[in-house]
């Protein structure tokens, strides 16, 4: 039985709480204990725009909070994963670590380099494993055609993830989807970014990226796109309507977060355990194909 500090990040707990709900359910199912750390804040990734040092310090503060409890961190957001993993890499340098710790000391913290960070998909893949997941499946998802979307920060910087994935040819989410019994759909723009990090500055640029992927998926007879980051989720679901208006399209692609897909295969309650009723694009198409 493993134990992690659950790092919710900014967006999931207030805008996509169904991701948190489903993640907690799936972790409980597989005996992964999640500890809430009240003082966790934003990981600092967007503060890097204004100050690289400030972003690093915020990441270090969060790492130190988990370390003080003797815990590794489990993330839901791809961007938090990338930001915290990159901070761990940077803080391996003694000079950097000392200067960061000097500032952390003022708020009663210190990061010694012990706490590690892992995304929920990586924990499911490496700790539980696809074989065990397959053995637990209770529902038949074989009629579902699912396209994966990874999230840039889940893969890059490659140097921060110790060779876990090949960023241009990732596999974990592919295999996790297959483990649910769903059918996997490959497509050309797999690695195209959702544009979420440019959204606060330019909605138009981010929607141009969303449109490209939706267009690529439009003729692939897909029932759902499965993702592992709430920002990617918001871009492809909530922005889908805006994209339809702007580009005069009628995309209607349901989007689902991986723990929800896995939860469905494990016979979790779609509403009570997975919050699928909160989706802006109806998941009816998904639910109707599950036996």
């Amino acid at each position: 039985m493993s134990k992690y500090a659950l790092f919710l990040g900014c967006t999931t707990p207030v805008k996509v709480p169904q991701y948190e709900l489903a993640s907690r359910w799936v972790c409980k199912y597989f005996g992964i204990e999640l500890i809430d750390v009240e003082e966790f804040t934003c990981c600092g990734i967007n503060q890097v725009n204004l100050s690289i040092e400030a972003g690093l310090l915020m990441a270090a503060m969060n790492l130190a909070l988990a370390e003080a409890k003797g815990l590794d961190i489990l993330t839901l957001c791809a961007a938090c994963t990338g930001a915290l993993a990159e901070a761990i890499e940077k803080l391996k340098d003694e000079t950097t670590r000392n200067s960061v710790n000097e500032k952390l000391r003022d708020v009663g913290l210190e990061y010694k380099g012990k706490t590690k960070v892992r995304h929920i998909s990586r924990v499911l893949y490496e700790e539980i494993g696809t074989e065990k997941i397959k053995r637990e499946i209770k529902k038949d998802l074989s009629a579902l055609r699912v396209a994966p979307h990874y999230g840039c920060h889940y893969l890059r910087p490659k140097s921060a993830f110790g060779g876990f994935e090949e960023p241009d040819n990732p596999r974990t989410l592919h295999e996790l989807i297959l483990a649910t019994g769903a059918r996997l759909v490959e497509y050309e723009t797999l690695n195209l970014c959702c544009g979420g990090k440019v959204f606060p500055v330019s909605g138009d640029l981010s929607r141009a990226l969303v449109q490209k992927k939706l267009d690529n998926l439009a003729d692939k007879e897909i029932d759902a796109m499965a993702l592992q980051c709430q920002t990617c989720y918001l871009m492809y679901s909530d922005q889908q309507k805006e994209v339809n208006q702007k580009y005069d399209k009628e995309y209607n692609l349901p989007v689902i977060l991986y723990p929800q897909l896995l939860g469905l295969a494990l016979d979790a309650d779609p509403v009570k355990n997975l919050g699928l009723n909160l989706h802006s694009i109806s998941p009816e198409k998904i639910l109707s194909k599950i036996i």
Partner: protein
Amino acid sequence: MNKVKKMVSTSELDPGFKSDVLTHPDARGLNACFSCGACSAGCPIHEVFPDYSPKKLAKMVRLGMKKEVLSSPYIWYCATCRNCVEHCPQNVKFFDILNVLKNMAAKEGYAPAAWIEQTKHVTETGIVFAKEDSWAKKREALSLRPLKKPGEKIRGIIKETGIGKIKPRVNSK
């Protein structure tokens, strides 16, 4: 759009700009750039908006076009996917260089209001959003634990970094 169209004469260049950028450890690879364009070729933003070009921006830094680079709205258009870093044959970390440029631009008053507001929100809510009353209800309906207000630690950290004092670009969108 603030296109760089006019010719820049050598007298307007700032020869110290590149050195200033290079002093940041994250930017040190810039000297190894041989302008192959792999960064732009793999950039999703460049693909939908060709005027945004990592290759061009890297060249402008090396030429010393300080004012043009730091005042350009384009430097804020990065989607942070880091394809440029992973694809560079010279191990130039354009994404990190761009962050150094954004930090310099922010100090000179060119940061978009969006990023400055986010910092303000972090000191108030601990996250990048301003508090909304609907949050608590939404979470309660799902039986998720209530969110706590951020403690003194994060406010201390933000104060320590000085980013709370950065002023936004005046005509910021």
